[in-house]
């Protein structure tokens, strides 16, 4: 098993991994997501998923990328000022569906890739924040039930 302690240096980070909530988090010193993806490939880490968070008060979005290395779960956080980030699909094939899903759920753009037709909402359109649609729809349904 590769020790996590040796990885920050490989990634050019002066920080150390901090375990929180079951994930080993590392703060990157300006490393781009594409550079990170290349480094993860070189380490033979397995990509797991990207978790998207919509931040409050129009602060944008945060994307958390997760990789597994010999059973150790690593997390890297990227805050998006605009609604776009570079795609890593050409570096890491495993991100295909989750990039497409986030694109369709939140209207985020993963630049530098082409999208297949809709993954989640057949016959619908992209660029709609599905989270807002579902939560608003649920509020209407609950209000009707209460009446």
């Amino acid at each position: 098993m590769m020790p996590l302690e040796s990885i920050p240096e490989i990634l050019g980070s002066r920080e150390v991994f901090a375990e929180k909530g079951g994930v080993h988090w590392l703060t990157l010193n300006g490393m781009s997501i594409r550079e990170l993806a290349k480094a993860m490939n070189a380490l033979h880490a397995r990509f797991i998923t990207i978790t998207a968070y919509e931040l409050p008060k129009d602060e944008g979005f945060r994307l958390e990328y997760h990789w597994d290395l010999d059973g150790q779960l690593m997390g890297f956080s990227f805050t998006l000022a605009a609604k776009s980030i570079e795609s890593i699909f050409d570096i890491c094939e495993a991100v295909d569906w989750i990039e497409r899903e986030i694109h369709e759920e939140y209207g985020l753009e993963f630049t530098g890739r082409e999208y297949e037709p809709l993954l989640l909402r057949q016959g619908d359109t992209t660029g709609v924040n599905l989270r807002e649609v579902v939560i608003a729809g649920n509020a209407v349904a609950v209000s009707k039930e209460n009446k």
Partner: protein
Amino acid sequence: MSYKIPMGPYHPALEEPYKLDMICEGETVLDAKLHIGFNFRGIEHLAETRNHIQVIALMERVCGICSNIHTLTLCSAMEKLTNLTPPPRAQYIRVIMAELERLHSHVLWAGIAAKLMGFKTMFMTCFELREKVMDVLQAISGNRVNYSMNRIGGVNRDIIDPGSILRMVEALELEMARTVIPIFTTSRTATSRCAGIGVLTTEKTIALGVVGPVARASGVPQDLRKAAPYAAYAEMEFDVPVQPDGDVRARLLVRALEIMESCKILRQALAKLPPGEIHTEGEKFAFITGTATARVEAPRGEVMYSVSWKEGSRNPARVHVRTPTFAVMPAIRWMVKGARLADTPLIQASIDPCYSCTDR
């Protein structure tokens, strides 16, 4: 001349809505595109409108087969946000439920695979065995599908008589060893329909981040029960079956061998079931602000939950689920390339796809 054959979203060879557009030349598939989302339910977002009790019931419905795994993973993540540790007996019961669910899932899959092979008697045998597993699950939880076993800090129901469950497991193991496994591993029908069909190479498995039995059948020995043990798995002795061939037969063999390993784990867990409470009795808890993540080896592979909470909030701020089928299903494109059209239903079924999990 090539032509396109759409399979699905409603098709006799597919159990649930999903579409595979195949480009064929003669009987050979040249390429394929997958389409999901015909029943996308927005469950992750609905979870943000549920409190800590309601969200367990909601997430149990992500999957109709591995429902217990979803609540186990969710509760494990929520326990990290509430600093609750389930008592040892609860951890063992979680292992028992998880392995029974694996048996249920693998035997169900074996039945469906047999049906797609045109092996109807084997289909009947597998479904008879599945009933026996479901009888055990019902004896423990009172339910056949959504067991409502997990809660924050433990489990809802105890195993009163481990001896009776053990006898059921032994009968099941005997039947598996006597009929299912020998037939699947040695019969000419199974071999001719499965060997060399739908191959996924080790390199492609790694590149696509494939998980679970499909990865293990392509020579990738990953299993969270070993690599990152949870519940009481660190105290269990078992092997992780791996096959190098990457074809449908290898997937069949891996799951057949996993059935035997699950029985081995069940016997250990039932024999060593520690005394004591089944949940943190009367302990008040509160959620801290933050995100917690939990991973579990479901019957189809790794499930991951990321749960975010704000202190004082009734509902989670975010629940993200990465289901195994979501990671495995893109590999179908590579499995069907070069395959005969007639083999594609079996190839698709060989990943044991869960469309319900994918369209969560």
